[in-house]
């Protein structure tokens, strides 16, 4: 079920909310938790019920392993390694099997059949979340909770599909806290407020940009210089507003149930360097990669060269987590490389003007998203070639009268077909991401008053009225 669907907003969410708190009100707390788990599984199964056994089996398996890991009479490291291996095996089987076989076939000229399995929804998210649980159990950082609490930690529907990726230790105490069983007026207001902002970001802004991004990548072969830039920028903004919009909605829905999810975005396009960007973009994934890959690999403790190698390995794996394709690997490689260059740069104490630092960082991110978005390597190259080719410049026809002399320099005058409106939308998006507070900063200063009520009412109305273009969230694919 999508957050931006009528069935979620008008049926699933209100019903789940009312029944959950009703069950708490009549003091059947176990039943209320069970109800929330079953509702979450229903929410998950809405897409395709065949995925349901996978997530349930994964939950049982990891819970048992977590229990084993807290026992003192078994060799824990081996149990941990086995647990992590089995989780990764599940992920590899569903997500990466075809990729490995295709490349294996290509290298050794073989013809091993592909599986062509549908990727179970959210598998990357719930697998990572449960690997972190196993590692935390091994480190004795988890407390004893029953299976129902654990099931809620994994399936809690606001964060089940696309994160934020949560830690066992930041969620379980909240589920166990008795104070969270009653409706909290302020949390409900804040939840509705942040959900409204997220819905608006998704359906009004991201879905509008998606039209141009999709069109541009579909006709990658024929893009001119401006069309190519509008295409890449459209995707850059689509991805941000889509994913941060989703996260805002997730945070908002969780708040209705008195659960605080961790922050996932902090104005990433304001970043002045690539390290800063990764402290602001998909923060819970960065945290996972740091805690469970970069630091275990040795982090920065083994000298300069090892630090660079660890950074590169972490980012290549991060890229691969997003998708089973060379474009994702290359995207991870680019970011790893950028971070290494940044570290060297910083080591020698070089400084840049802020505006230039921002320009370089933003453009690097924008260009690297092209690899992230392109279905094929060729598409990425075509879009990038057009972005940097001055042999293919087309200006709007109405400028021909004034700038006609440019035709002597190979500039053509034609129609700005499908991307005409981006000329207005892209500057507006820049203003929004650069000059305004992000939604969580707005939440920090939130007051329950008439102004915020009217604002929320209008923003939520605009979101609901624009929901007629139902589209999935981009991060559902990862």
């Amino acid at each position, binding site marked *: 079920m999508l957050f931006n669907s*009528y069935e979620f907003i008008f049926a699933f969410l209100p019903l789940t909310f009312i029944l959950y708190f009703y069950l708490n009100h009549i003091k059947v707390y176990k039943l209320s938790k069970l109800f929330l788990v079953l509702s979450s599984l229903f929410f998950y199964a809405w897409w395709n019920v065949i995925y349901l056994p996978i997530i349930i089996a994964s939950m049982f398996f990891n819970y048992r392993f977590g229990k084993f890991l807290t026992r003192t009479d078994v060799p824990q490291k081996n149990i941990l390694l086995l647990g992590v291996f089995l989780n990764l095996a599940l992920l590899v089987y569903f997500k990466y099997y075809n990729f490995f076989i295709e490349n294996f076939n290509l290298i050794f000229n073989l013809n091993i059949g592909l599986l062509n399995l549908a990727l179970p929804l959210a598998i990357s998210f719930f697998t990572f979340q449960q690997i972190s649980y196993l590692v935390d159990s091994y480190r004795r950082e988890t407390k004893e909770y029953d299976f129902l609490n654990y099931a809620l930690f994994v399936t809690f529907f606001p964060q089940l599909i696309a994160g934020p990726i949560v830690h066992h230790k930041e969620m379980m105490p909240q589920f166990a806290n008795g104070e969270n069983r009653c409706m909290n*007026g*302020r949390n*409900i*207001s804040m939840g*509705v407020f942040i959900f409204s902002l997220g819905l608006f970001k998704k359906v009004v802004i991201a*879905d509008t940009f998606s*039209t141009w991004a999709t069109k541009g990548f*579909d*006709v990658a*072969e*024929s893009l001119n210089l401006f069309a190519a830039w509008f295409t890449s920028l459209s995707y850059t903004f689509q991805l941000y507003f889509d994913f941060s919009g989703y996260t805002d909605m997730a945070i908002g829905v969780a708040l209705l149930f008195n659960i605080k999810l961790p922050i996932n975005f902090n104005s990433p396009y304001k970043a002045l360097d690539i390290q800063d960007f990764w402290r602001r973009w998909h923060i819970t994934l960065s945290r996972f990669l740091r805690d469970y890959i970069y630091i275990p690999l040795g982090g920065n403790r083994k000298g300069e060269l090892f630090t660079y190698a660890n950074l590169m390995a972490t980012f290549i794996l991060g890229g691969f987590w997003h998708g089973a394709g060379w474009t994702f690997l290359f995207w991870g490689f680019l970011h790893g490389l950028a971070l290494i260059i940044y570290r060297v740069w910083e080591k020698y104490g070089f400084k840049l003007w802020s505006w230039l630092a921002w320009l370089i960082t933003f453009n690097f991110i924008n260009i690297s998203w092209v690899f992230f978005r392109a279905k094929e390597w060729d598409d990425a190259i075509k879009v990038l070639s057009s972005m940097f080719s001055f042999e293919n410049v087309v200006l709007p026809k109405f400028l021909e009268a004034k700038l006609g002399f440019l035709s002597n320099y190979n500039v*053509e005058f*034609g*129609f700005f077909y499908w991307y005409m409106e981006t000329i207005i939308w892209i500057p507006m998006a820049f203003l929004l991401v650069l000059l305004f507070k992000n939604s969580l900063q707005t939440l920090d200063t939130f007051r*329950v*008053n*008439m102004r*915020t*009520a*009217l604002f*929320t*009412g*209008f923003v*939520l*109305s*605009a979101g*609901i*009225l*624009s*929901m*007629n*273009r*139902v*589209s999935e969230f981009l991060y559902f694919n990862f």
Partner: protein
Amino acid sequence: MSSKKWLSVVFLVIFLNMALVALVNYVVDPFGIFGTNILKNNLQMNERFVKIEYIEKNHQKYNAYLFGSSRIGVVDPKVIEKYVPNSKFYNFTVSSANLHDYLMHLRYFVEQNYEIKTLYLQLDIDDMNNYGQDSSDYLSQLHPHVTHDSLALFYARYLLGFFPLNIRTKIEVNLAQEVKKTYDLENGTWELPYNEKALREDAKKYVEQEKSFHFKNRRVIYYTQEVHNKEALKEIVEICKEEKIKLYLFITPHNQNMMDTFVLEDYRKYLRNISEITTFYDFSGYNSVTTNNENYYEMSHYRPHVARWVAAHIFNDKSVNIPRDFGKIIEKGDINGH
């Protein structure tokens, strides 16, 4: 302010906004979904919905159909009925249609047991990169009966959608004195009386003033929907065989300027793929009809006399004087000589 009051204000604002939008959508009916008819001129309507509604009530009047994009909309069914004995055609033109529409509608008609003896199907070259419709395109959503979706949800989407541009256009069209486009739901055709009159009075002047004839186009349309298109056409041909429907398939005589947008290699591949599936008539390419702008309203739509030439060629009507280089039959599997 208490949280309860805060929430009441939020929900009241949402309710009022939605009620206002629903009221405007119902009264203006920008896509012709609700049949309100307060604003009579339906220049833009969701033909897929409106025509299915019409056919569901009137299918017994027809036993043959014309399927195609808006380009086939100028074909008077009588022109084809003349050549097909005992036929009663309905022009099921729908704007921006592609093979997905034809397949879905044919499946639906067969499923409903509507009588179909003949299918006169027009394919456009720009189908090469189109299959299906974007969910945000409200002019082109299929009828929920065709997609087996909920009718109530369909109405809700049209009632609670925010369509400022469509509403403005519909109001403007209805305020304008001049009727630029007329629609006949009884036979499914559309006409452009204003353009037709202007062309008859002074074709040279019309062509000179029509901007679309003078664009410098670039070859940007690739064959990106090969798999979908082939599968859909195969299924259409198979359904026609199974249901004993006589299929006449032809390729639109695209105006030269439109032809300039197709990548030639992909265009040839598109034709080759069609010929592997079935016999068809090809009116596309650069010939004396497509290179004469006077045969078109603009670079996308041909005029009714071109439709008559197409039909005369397909049905081998020697009484009609057709330009000699216009149209060619491509027998199944025999594209090489073309």
